[in-house]
């Protein structure tokens, strides 16, 4: 939608968002990329009209907090999420949550299991929507 033309409106909107939300968006972009990213790469990735200085500030703040690690790249740094040393335990716990085949918990999950019919309906809806 706004990808092609990040107008002034979206610029202002993004700059005014709470810093916690911006941090979340930046961390999500880094995890999704799966490789170290420079501030300008993150900026492109987010496609949200954030100023590069803002992105740089957020990245170094997350680095100070120990959420990210960074390596020198050219004149600046490339950042990536700090891998969890206890990743294995996390995986196991996640399995614990998953084992409830019906997933009937008070945790509100984003999406429920689909049955094969749902899957077809969704694919059709997605195709119509493109």
């Amino acid at each position, binding site marked *: 939608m706004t990808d092609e033309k990040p107008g002034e409106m979206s610029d202002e909107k993004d700059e005014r968002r709470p810093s916690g939300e911006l941090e979340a*968006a930046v961390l999500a972009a880094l995890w999704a990329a799966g490789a170290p990213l420079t501030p300008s790469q993150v900026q492109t990735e987010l496609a949200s009209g954030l100023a590069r200085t803002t992105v740089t500030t957020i990245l170094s703040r997350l680095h100070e907090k120990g959420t990210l690690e960074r390596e020198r790249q050219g004149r600046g740094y490339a950042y990536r999420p700090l891998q969890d040393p206890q990743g294995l335990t996390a995986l196991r716990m996640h399995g614990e949550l998953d084992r409830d085949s019906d997933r009937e918990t008070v*945790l*509100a999950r*984003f999406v429920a299991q689909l049955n094969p019919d*749902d899957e077809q*309906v969704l694919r059709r809806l997605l195709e119509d929507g493109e």
Partner: protein
Amino acid sequence: MTPAPLLIPLLQVPLLQVLLLLVPLLLPFAAPPLARRILDRCPPVAALWSLTASALLLAGGTVAALGTLALTGLLKIPAFAALGELTHPLRTPSARLILPLAALAAGLLTLGALTLGRSVLRQVTGFRAARSEADRRPAAGDLCVVDSPHPDAYALPGRPQRIVVTTGMLRSLDAAEREALFAHERAHNAGRHHYFLAAAELTAHCHPALRPVRAAIRLAAERAADEVAARTVGDRRLTARAIARAALASTAPPPHSSVTPGVATGPVPHRVTALLSPVPLRPRTWIAALLTTCALLSSATAATVALQVHENIEIAQGETTD
């Protein structure tokens, strides 16, 4: 406050009391079809409130009715009558009718309590696991990322409120779709939807007809969060796409290739369709009012009979004269 004067003597007829107790036990069966209509026709937040309130009232009526029946039967047994300090026999329909009914009621109450207990235990375990997992890793803002290829995302209530998303989920969405997902999860936390989900879970163990209502409450909570997300990102189509993409990504190949009933579509297509369709101009809130009225009627009937039985017990204890 007081029912019409003519009703009072009628309410004292024991057989009629038992018949009246069937009302709160049968009315919940009217709830599932109404709940479906409420989901289709009412704004999601209104649906969420009316469905949850109605489910709680219907569940309360069911428990009160079963409890009254069980207690009445118990006091027909001489040992318990002595324990309850009854000096006269309690006025009830014939023991041949009331004893099997009371035994059935007690059995159903026990069964409900057991399944509820098991569910609470499972919920608490699951919640603790999720909480400790989220607390142990660094967060960025309110986001907590779990490094797992399996796409999943949920809102974690409590302090601090978090949204937990797996790397598998982050990688199956683009930046704009991720924002829709985050807005959706934040809406769950901001709207305190976990209270509604817990209430739904509780009521589902009180009456079998309230199980489909639990599903409806869950769907209403998701729909409410979807609408907030669509407003936040300012794009309904984008929000619908994010949900559809996430659902397709997290769907494992079906575990059993058994025939699944294909009549009703599941919750995800419902949500996507709702976001892609035009917003209904005239919501039918009267359906929600109808369900709430049914629920009020049910719990009021149960309460009236329970009070009347309580009075009968006091009479039998010799504290009040007839």
